[in-house]
């Protein structure tokens, strides 16, 4: 019991400090919609970096990366491969998106579709796609958090109370502080996670094998095929790898919450510089793989591979250290969940409900309704996490394959004068239909290729045909800037 008590105190302290920082962050600002969702567009390089790093490293990274290394082997390298490439894509898309955001006061991705294509139906459709795919992502954070806290407290805190308490904290600081709360909690989370990953990644292989090199030598001797693709799977080969890496790299910054993070920046150049340096931060990711590979040798045969990291940490270190990992893990769920919650609520009220059901809503009413919706969506995700089973990883993969279908609408919307609302809508709907069919009928990967990638190919073909049928016409971005400044 004293073991569990030590870990429990450390976890509670970390989560408590995180919650306090989050609540405090918003107190010095008057929380209108601009402050709440895009922090008044005032973040410099460091804060944008912390917020993006805070959002990108979710519980899936924390538990999933080591878990895939443990259970699947070689295919886990896709996670490492797409990390630098998402920032390459962001370099060419987000600064322009930020400029559009600044000029037209955009707060969400769906706002972009409304302004660029002049269509409220397209806006509502994009908002709905975002919300539908964000809820399973949110549910994944809740479930991962419950798992981390339960294992890290030696069963001292059960899964359900852990999920309820920490999500009440998240909902509270999102409600009061908006994106500022998430950014400030990120400061704590990023430092803890960096420390935890560096320490665990070097110490665990050193403890059992005398270093990372000797650990790999032992693994190669024991399982020579585990470290190359398809590893321990039978269908995750090179075609799957390439199609998944390209699909994920293009999909990543189509998630509506990352578009929102881009709008918090002070300038487009902040975003561009951030895109240059971000890949360096992924250097902790390989260490998560190393822990997963070591766990395969030291604690083989786990039923749930998501527990590989926590199990080996629990076996190796004293309870208070497990508490630090548990606390860092809990914050790793809470920060992305906060921004997902914020984005889903705003999309739902501002871009879906308001244009369809209540076009006369004022900005103040929209802000008030969006903040109230935070509590509703948090309760919904919590309910799914408590009462449903574990099909959510499948839902998340469907989510990536789904949001990548927004890519042509965003990129051609920014750079081309030959795309219209109708063409983009048809292409997007066809892409999502292909993905939903392949994933829901368990045909992913299809003939070795990732379903989202195939959906995107269909999507792009339709966009190309639509472009041929459309003559170039001026877009809102061609209008002189001063006409829009009011």
């Amino acid at each position, binding site marked *: 019991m004293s073991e569990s008590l030590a870990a429990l105190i450390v976890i509670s302290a970390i989560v408590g400090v995180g919650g306090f920082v989050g609540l405090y962050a918003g107190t010095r600002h008057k929380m209108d919609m601009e402050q709440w969702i895009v922090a008044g567009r005032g973040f410099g390089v460091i804060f944008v970096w912390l917020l993006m790093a805070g959002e990108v490293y979710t519980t899936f990274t924390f538990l999933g990366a080591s878990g895939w290394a443990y259970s699947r082997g*070689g295919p886990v*390298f896709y996670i*490492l*491969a797409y*990390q*630098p*490439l998402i*920032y*390459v894509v962001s*370099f*060419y898309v987000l600064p*322009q998106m930020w*400029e*559009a955001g600044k*000029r037209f006061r955009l707060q969400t991705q769906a706002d972009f579709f409304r302004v660029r294509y002049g269509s409220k139906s397209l806006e509502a459709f994009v908002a709905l796609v975002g919300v539908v795919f964000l809820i399973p992502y949110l549910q994944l954070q809740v479930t991962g958090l419950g798992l981390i806290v339960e294992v890290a407290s030696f069963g001292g805190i059960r899964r359900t109370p852990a999920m309820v308490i920490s999500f009440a904290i998240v909902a509270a600081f999102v409600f009061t502080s908006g994106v500022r709360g998430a950014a400030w909690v990120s400061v704590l989370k990023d430092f803890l996670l960096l420390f935890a990953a560096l320490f665990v990644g070097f110490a665990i292989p050193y403890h059992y094998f005398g*270093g*990372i*090199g*000797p650990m*790999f*030598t032992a693994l*190669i001797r024991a399982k*020579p095929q585990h*470290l*190359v*693709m398809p590893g321990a799977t039978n269908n995750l080969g*090179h075609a799957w*790898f*390439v199609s998944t*890496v*390209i699909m994920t*790299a293009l999909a990543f910054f189509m998630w509506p919450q990352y578009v929102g993070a881009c709008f918090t920046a002070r*300038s*487009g*150049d902040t975003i*561009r*510089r951030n*895109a*240059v*340096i971000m*890949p*360096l931060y*992924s*250097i902790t990711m*390989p260490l998560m*793989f190393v822990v997963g590979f070591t766990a395969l040798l030291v604690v083989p045969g786990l039923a749930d591979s998501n527990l590989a990291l926590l199990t080996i940490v629990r076996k190796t270190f004293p309870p208070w250290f497990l508490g630090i990992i548990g606390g860092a893990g809990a914050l790793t769920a809470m920060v992305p969940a906060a921004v997902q919650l914020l984005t889903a609520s705003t999309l739902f009220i501002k871009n879906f409900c308001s244009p369809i059901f209540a076009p006369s809503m004022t900005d103040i009413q929209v802000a008030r309704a969006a903040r109230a919706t935070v509590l509703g969506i948090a309760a919904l995700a919590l309910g799914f996490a408590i009462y449903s089973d574990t099909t959510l990883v499948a839902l998340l993969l469907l989510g990536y394959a789904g949001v990548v279908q927004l890519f042509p609408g965003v990129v051609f919307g*920014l*750079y081309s004068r030959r795309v219209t609302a109708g063409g983009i809508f048809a292409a997007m709907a066809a892409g999502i239909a292909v993905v939903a069919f392949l994933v829901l009928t368990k045909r992913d990967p299809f003939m070795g290729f990732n379903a989202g990638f195939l959906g995107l190919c269909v999507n792009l073909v339709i966009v190309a045909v639509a472009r041929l049928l459309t003559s170039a016409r001026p877009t809102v*971005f061609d209008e002189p*800037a001063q006409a829009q400044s009011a």
Partner: protein
Amino acid sequence: MKRPSLGAILFGLIPFAAICLPVSVWDRIDPRVFGLPFNFFWLISWLVLTPLCMWGAYHIIETGRRPSPLRQNKEFVP
């Protein structure tokens, strides 16, 4: 909106090409580098090399935006 120049885009294609095209060549265990399997080492090294490529792209975009030697610190207006 103004598209990035061809040179800036080419820099960004380097990491994509290096990771996606020769996958059947680099997805191997030997030669081990610093004790790491070769595929693991290759992907880790692109975490460092990608910022270098993107620094090149950034440089091109920066110089393209500078109209005169006296650089004015104004926001870029599309």
